[in-house]
């Protein structure tokens, strides 16, 4: 209420300035008139009385100005006067104005240009084939997006074959492994579903990528090497396939080596099959999902389809609605993968 009345006062002071000014003028004048009346009553001549009254009040204009300075909104008015003064000065000195504007324009322009170059070179587009069709999954929440997904959600997306051609899961945080046997080294690995490499159009230069059998629970201890690790650890030996890689003292069979140009997101030295229970009804969110849109399907179509699918999903998993605060109106969505990288 107090704030409201203050705003009202400020807007009255600024907008109905003439009226406010006239009232102030009347008020101060009446004061001087009344002071004059007092002097005349005590026997002074009218002109002398008036002169003394005016001097005694300290000048009508000065009184008015001191009221104006204290008035609410005085700061705003001063700012406006400064702005107008600035504009007048600029108009008066065209040479200075041109120089200042040119300096600003060059500065802003140069920054924009440099940023554009940085953006294009450092944040260069993803190198995967059909990268513009690769999207990643997220769930929007008022406090921000969450990118983790659950197995039932993975399955639900898998069924949307009208919009998604392929879908793959991976764990974004990826474990560190102690490479044992020979010189110890810590390597970074991520778990991926068998579909992962196909989705990214990544080819093995030796051996092969994971089979669906290897990706199933108890599918065995197999591993795929990055080009870098293959070079570093095995001296680019062509006969590593079938050999064992010792991770934390457990032997893993090397089934493939990826090409030099394949860099996964996040980067990794080794890839392991995810081997999650694909029929699980566990709603825990523990991995990330990427998908490749069907040719000709746009982001909005995919998201519209996911909105539809959300209703079915909630029907099958009523718990998700309660436990995950996952109302159908807030269905999960997909976003270009490039956007994830820019973050």
């Amino acid at each position, binding site marked *: 209420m107090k704030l409201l009345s203050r705003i009202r*006062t400020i807007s009255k002071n600024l907008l109905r300035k003439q009226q406010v000014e006239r009232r102030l003028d009347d008020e101060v004048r009446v004061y001087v008139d*009344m002071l004059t009346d007092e002097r005349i009553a005590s026997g002074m001549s009218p002109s002398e009385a008036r002169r003394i009254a005016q001097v005694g009040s300290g000048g009508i204009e000065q009184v008015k100005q001191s009221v104006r300075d204290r008035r609410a909104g005085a700061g705003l008015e001063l700012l406006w006067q400064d702005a107008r003064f600035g504009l007048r000065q600029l108009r008066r000195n065209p040479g200075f104005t041109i120089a200042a504007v040119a300096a600003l324009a060059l500065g802003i322009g140069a920054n924009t240009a440099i940023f554009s170059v940085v953006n294009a070179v450092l944040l260069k587009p993803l190198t995967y084939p059909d990268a513009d069709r690769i999207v990643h999954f997220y769930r929007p929440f008022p406090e921000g997006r969450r990118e983790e997904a659950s197995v039932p959600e993975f399955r639900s997306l898998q069924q949307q074959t009208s919009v998604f051609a392929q879908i793959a899961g991976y764990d974004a945080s990826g474990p560190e492994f102690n490479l044992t046997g020979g010189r110890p080294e810590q390597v970074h690995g991520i778990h991926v579903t068998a579909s992962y490499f196909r989705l990214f159009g990544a080819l093995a230069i030796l051996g092969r990528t994971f089979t669906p059998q290897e990706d199933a629970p108890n599918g065995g201890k197999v591993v795929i090497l990055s080009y870098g690790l293959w070079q570093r650890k095995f001296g680019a030996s062509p006969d590593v396939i079938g050999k064992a890689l010792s991770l934390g003292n457990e032997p893993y069979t090397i089934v493939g080596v990826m090409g030099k140009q394949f860099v996964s997101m996040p980067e990794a030295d080794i890839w392991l099959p995810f081997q999650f229970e694909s029929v699980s009804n566990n709603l825990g969110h523990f991995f990330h999902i990427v998908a490749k849109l069907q040719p000709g399907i746009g982001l909005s179509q995919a998201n519209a389809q996911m909105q539809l699918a959300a209703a079915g999903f909630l029907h099958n998993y009523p718990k998700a609605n309660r436990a995950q605060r996952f109302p159908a109106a807030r269905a999960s969505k997909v976003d270009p993968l490039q956007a994830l990288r820019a973050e």
Partner: protein
Amino acid sequence: MSSKQATLLQGRLDLLVLKALGAGELHGLGISRRIEQVTRGTFLVKPGSLFPALHRMEEAGWLNSFWGESENNRRAKFYRLTRSGKRQLSVETDQWTRVAHAMTNALRAT
């Protein structure tokens, strides 16, 4: 008279104006005269400080104003206390009384 005039402490003008209006509505000169009278001429309030204070206090919601006839049939702007002005008067009176007591005691201490 001017020799015993005191400089008005910052912030005390508000209290004097509130007090002057406590007895009823007054116009600007009336407030000046009332303060002069109740302080026995110790404080002479000049319009250069009175009017800014009145406008500020009106904006703060302690006073409101209206135009009326003065005793000499001049159209003058009268001020009166609002409810929040009355509250302010009692708050400031309490404060001032405490300060005055404290100062008196401090100066009396040996």
